Structures are given as C-alpha cells and as structure tokens.
C-alpha cells in the first residue's frame, strides 16, 4: 500500500497544547469518517465541532463523548473513543493516542476512524473491533509518527481568508 493512502489529518485543535482531533483516511470501505463528516448537514457538523472543542478543553460531557474503561469489555477497547450526536443517532468512532510521546507524553489525539448511524443504546463491539484493527495497523502507526502531521496548513481548520 502506498504511504499516502493512509493519511491522518488534524481536523480540530491544530496548535492546541493538550489535545487534537484527527481524521483517518485508509483504503478500506469502513474507514469513512472524513467523507461522512463532509456530507453532514450544517447543524450536525456544528454539533460535532462543538463536541471536539469541549473534549479538547477537557469538559466532562459523557453524553457527547466518552471512552471505555478497563472494566468494560475486558478492557479490550480502553483506547477507543466515540463522539455522539444522540439526537441524530450519529456516532464517530476512533481511538486515543499520544503522537508527541516521548517529548510530550501527555499530548493526546483522538483519531476518528468511522461513522455510524446507531439507534441502539448499547455498544456495538463490531465497530470498536474495526477501530482497534486500525489502531494497531502499522501504516496508521507510521502516519502518526509523520513529522508533517503537525505541520501548518494541514487539516480542515484551514480556511481561505
């Protein structure tokens, strides 16, 4: 697989000292977060962007986003994370990582992988399994180490002025 087929782009928090949210691009059908996000209506898009802001600023909003702790699902998904828009039954699944370690081990990035429409309350582990697969993927790991990841000009937070 060509390296540029696996790409991680910072969507929110470019320049944030503690956290950022990024989208994964990968040539498998279920990695669809970027396309799905781009096709959201304005209200849903704003809802998620607001949630990204809140998470990055460390507000506690379990109705908007949460992870899974080690006591759930035998700890298999403790690196997974979800942003939810309950009103629209939307979920953005991804994983948490520390791409600036070891220099800045506390810096956290949420790499979003897939979009799902979900009407059931309980977690569908099939989606989390896919996220986990991506998290462990060597190309994804390499993309997280790419020095261009934090280069200015990347990401959707670039607007023409």
């Amino acid at each position, binding site marked *: 697989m060509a390296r540029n087929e696996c790409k991680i782009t910072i969507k929110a928090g470019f320049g944030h000292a503690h956290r950022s949210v990024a989208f994964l691009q990968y040539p498998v059908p279920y990695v669809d977060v970027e396309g799905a996000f781009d096709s959201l209506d304005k209200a849903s898009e*704003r809802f998620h962007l607001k949630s990204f802001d809140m998470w990055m600023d460390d507000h506690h909003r379990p109705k908007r986003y949460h992870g899974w702790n080690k006591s759930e699902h035998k700890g298999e998904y403790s690196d997974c994370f979800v942003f939810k828009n309950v009103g629209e039954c939307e979920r953005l699944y991804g994983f948490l990582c520390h791409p600036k370690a070891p220099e800045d081990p506390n810096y956290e990035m949420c790499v979003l992988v897939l979009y799902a429409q979900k009407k059931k309350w309980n977690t569908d582990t099939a989606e989390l399994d896919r996220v986990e697969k991506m998290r462990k993927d060597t190309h994804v790991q390499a993309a997280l180490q790419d020095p261009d990841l934090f280069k200015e000009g990347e990401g959707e*937070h670039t607007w023409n002025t």
Partner: protein
Amino acid sequence: MEHITHWTERGTEDFFYSIASDFIDQLQEKMEALGMKQSQLAEAARVSKSYVSKVFKNPGNLSLETLVKFARTVGMKVSIVAYEDKNDPDNTRGPINSDIFRLCWERAERPADMWAIKEMAVARTNSLSINHRLANFELGWQVFPQTNTGARSRSTNTVARFPSNPTGPKMITSTDWNATQKRLTLEV
C-alpha cells in the same frame, strides 16, 4: 493566503451556534438535576414541544428572548459577557466556554456587584498585611531568639513587639519571605 483558525471564525452563525450550545448544555444539566423533561420545559416556558426539540437539536435557532425564558423557567439567570481574549486575538480556539466564566464566578463566592468585588480586594490586601506582619515576627524571633526584649511566641496570643536592633531593620529577602510563608502555611 491561508490562515489557520477556528471553525467559529467562518461566520457569525457558527460563532452563535457555539455559544448557544454552551447555554443548552447548561440548561440540560439543570433540567436533569430537576428531573425536568423537554415537554415540561415547553409547558412552563409556554412554547411548543417541537420548538424546544428544534432548539435543543440546533441551538443556532435560539433567540435571546427564548434563552432568557428557558433560563428563568429552571431558576437560572443569564448574563451576556463580552471579553477581549488577549491570549487568542485571532480566534484560533473559539469562544471561551461559558462554564469557565460560571466556575470562576462561583469560586469567587458569587460577587453580586462592584461593592463585593471591592470588599474582596480589601480582604485580600488585609490578609496579605497580616501575613507580612506574621512573617516579620517570625524572622525577628529567629534573629533574636535569646533576647528578652518582649517578643513572645504567637502561641501565647499576645501582641508581638520587635526586639530592638542596633544595626537597623532587617530587610526581608524573597528567600526569607518564601521560607517563612512556607513555614507559616505548615504551622497553620
């Protein structure tokens, strides 16, 4: 030229959505604490259920009048705070979440007016003076522990008098001050 900035910089609607969304989050939190449903809020605020549902889904549709109406319905007040964000003049991080302002106000013991702010400032100054006086006393006790000139331990609850010092008053260095402050904190 491309310029990295925040999504709320795309336009006023985005900025408004962000701050209205903060309000809806605070409102929802309060409603949960009260055990209030959206339909009950609609009834109490005399608006339709569909309107409540609509603005909860898309806070960008809120009017200032409705915002006040909802807040009063759940026993809250609303203030509009304009501020200059000197740390982020280009708005690369979006507006400060209203929870930050609320928490700061609550931690400052909810001052209601400028009198309360002034009283807080005076109290802070007095407390500093007392600390300075205590620090001076401690230093005096250390410098002249064996002299019998009237300075006594604070535990005796008497007014401390400084021992006379023929070489003139001792200047408190920052190291002295920090060390004394630390010791006082530990003692307290």
